[in-house]
């Protein structure tokens, strides 16, 4: 059972990691926590579910989902964050919380209070791994897509011009501007990347849980935020490790201690790590 629970933890953990990457990138470059990240995840899921219900095209639905998430992220940056740039960091934080409440109420109005099922049912194909655990095709896809995106993101950030620009702005935005980097562009690209990752996470979970609702972003958003802190906020590998640790911790806690406190284990793990290592697993000392 241990291996099976590790697999389960890995699946949710990789999704937390995707959302946590959004938190950590935006924190890294802007120094603020975007509390609306969970809502971006929810809009990604709705974009895909509604498009799929209307057209029946899976590819189109995925694109629509990611597109919706990016659009929400883009608007957030423009409306909720850009006008507040340079102010005390608490102000954009409050703006983010407001945006999160607004977005989830808006989704409730637009899409209704009910859960929606994913329009396509995936046939459960299982594979046995290590002789002791089973993994379904869908779980493999979730893990594969998540890790694929993480690799692509790392390559993008470290190898491309735009990625390097983001890193430069994250290190020192004034110096970056002086050396000719378009800082606004870097902000927009960061928001688009973070939102796209959250959107993909939302779509994966809409398929996996088969229940898309306006409040679906709340808990994963909170957990991904914890994952980002756990891994060391601002650090990209940290967000990945944080997400995986969190996912596995809560599954093992639920399996071996008590399932009534499943959500609590994620936060206990967070507190424990922060007591021992206040800057997070991979956080750098600033």
């Amino acid at each position, binding site marked *: *059972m241990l291996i*099976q*629970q590790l697999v*389960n*933890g890995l*699946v*949710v953990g990789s999704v937390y990691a995707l959302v946590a990457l959004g938190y950590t990138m935006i924190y890294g470059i802007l120094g603020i926590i975007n509390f609306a990240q969970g809502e971006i995840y929810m809009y990604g899921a709705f974009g895909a579910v509604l498009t799929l219900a209307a057209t029946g095209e899976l590819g189109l639905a995925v694109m629509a989902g990611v597109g919706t998430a990016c659009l929400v992220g883009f608007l957030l940056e423009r409306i909720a964050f850009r006008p507040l740039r340079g102010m005390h960091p608490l102000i954009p934080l409050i703006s983010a919380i407001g945006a999160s409440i607004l977005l989830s109420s808006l989704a409730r109005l637009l899409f*209704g*209070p*009910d*859960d*929606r*099922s994913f329009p396509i*049912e995936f046939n*459960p194909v*299982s594979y046995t791994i290590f002789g002791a655990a*089973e993994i*379904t095709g*869908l779980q493999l896809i979730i893990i594969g897509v998540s890790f694929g995106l993480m690799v692509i993101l790392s390559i993008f950030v470290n190898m491309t011009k735009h990625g390097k620009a983001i890193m430069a702005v994250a290190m020192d935005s004034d110096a970056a501007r002086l050396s000719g980097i378009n800082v606004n562009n870097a902000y927009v690209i960061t928001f688009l990347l973070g939102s796209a990752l959250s959107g993909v996470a939302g779509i994966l*979970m809409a398929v996996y*849980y*088969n*229940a898309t*609702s306006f*409040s*679906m972003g*709340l*808990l994963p958003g909170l957990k991904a935020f914890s994952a980002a802190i756990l891994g060391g906020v601002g650090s990209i590998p940290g967000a990945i490790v944080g997400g995986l640790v969190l996912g596995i911790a*809560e*599954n*093992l806690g*639920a*399996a071996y201690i008590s*399932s*009534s406190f*499943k*959500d609590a284990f994620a936060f206990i793990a967070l507190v424990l790590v922060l007591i021992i290592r206040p800057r997070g697993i991979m956080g750098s000392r600033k």
Partner: protein
Amino acid sequence: MKKILLVCALCMCVLGMGICQAKAEDIKIGAILRLSIGASDGIPAKRGIEIAVKEINAAGGINGNPLVVIFEDSKDSPQASVSAFQKLTSMDKVQVVIGPMMSGEALAVAPIAPRDGIVVITPTATSPKVSGSGLYRGCTRIDKQAEVLTKYAKDVLKTTKVAILYSNEPYGKGCNEVFTKFFGDVGIPVVIAESFMVGDRDFSAQLTKIKQNEFDLIFIPGYLQETAPAISQARKIGINAVSMGVYGDMAPKYIELAGKASEGHVNGSEYNEAYDTPTNKKFKTEYYKIIKANPTETNNIMFAAITYDMTKMVAKAIAEKGYTPEGIKGYLDTVKDFDGVTGKLSFDKNGDVVKQGVYLFKVKNGKYVKAQ
């Protein structure tokens, strides 16, 4: 000065509205339903009352007086239910209240209702504690439901061992306790009981643990927002035991969310759509007319059926015995075989509804069909 004038004018408007609305001949009754949180149950319940009121008023009201229902939101909280109750009795001067819908709320209202001499009928509270608390109840107690379902498991499904995955809130926990007892009584051991939180969408940790055991029935009490994804994930990881649930699953939404995983799901219900009486046919037509006109609204005819019956009974009581609590109580205590859409109804000495019993339903080809 302008401001004061404006305030005065507004006050006059409000007073004026109040006076206009309170027509002397209206018969006002109250309803406390889950209109915000838990609206997927509360809105159908409200529709049931509305259908009954429309029918009664179209037929000339109660002895010529129109029936008016004042709806209040229970906000899923005992405190809010009590204040809604106080508002209805002290400001609107109602003598009878339909609601609240959940056991905790009904039990909070129970001690103050007799003091004020108000008749309270809860449509859907299933806790055994409601019996004898002075309230009337329009649905079957959870233990009666458990008795029927566990007996069905033993006799028809030939269950030998059961696993339970319950929702970690009063309703799911209560179901876990009551059903564990009844499963024990019919000789079906519970091999494992796990829980999940309201709002949870990932059940893989619990299901993996459950899968380590041997069982041929999985019982998942709770609300469909969680129970539907739970069964669909159970099927995905290869749990093939027959699934069983409680009233919360009795809605088309459950089948929609759970998809193929819902096939064979066994479930109790208060209402049988195929119940062949003219009253029920008329009620069904009216309900589906509303659903058709509001396609985004939750479709759950069972809740509408119960509140519809309760409203019709109250109206009949007022028509026969006058609009006083004593009169209504007198009618409800003595009524026999009332022609309702949920069956032929009477009340026992504890105020619990007596009807033909719990209907059992099973999902077959994506639809609930009667199992017994």
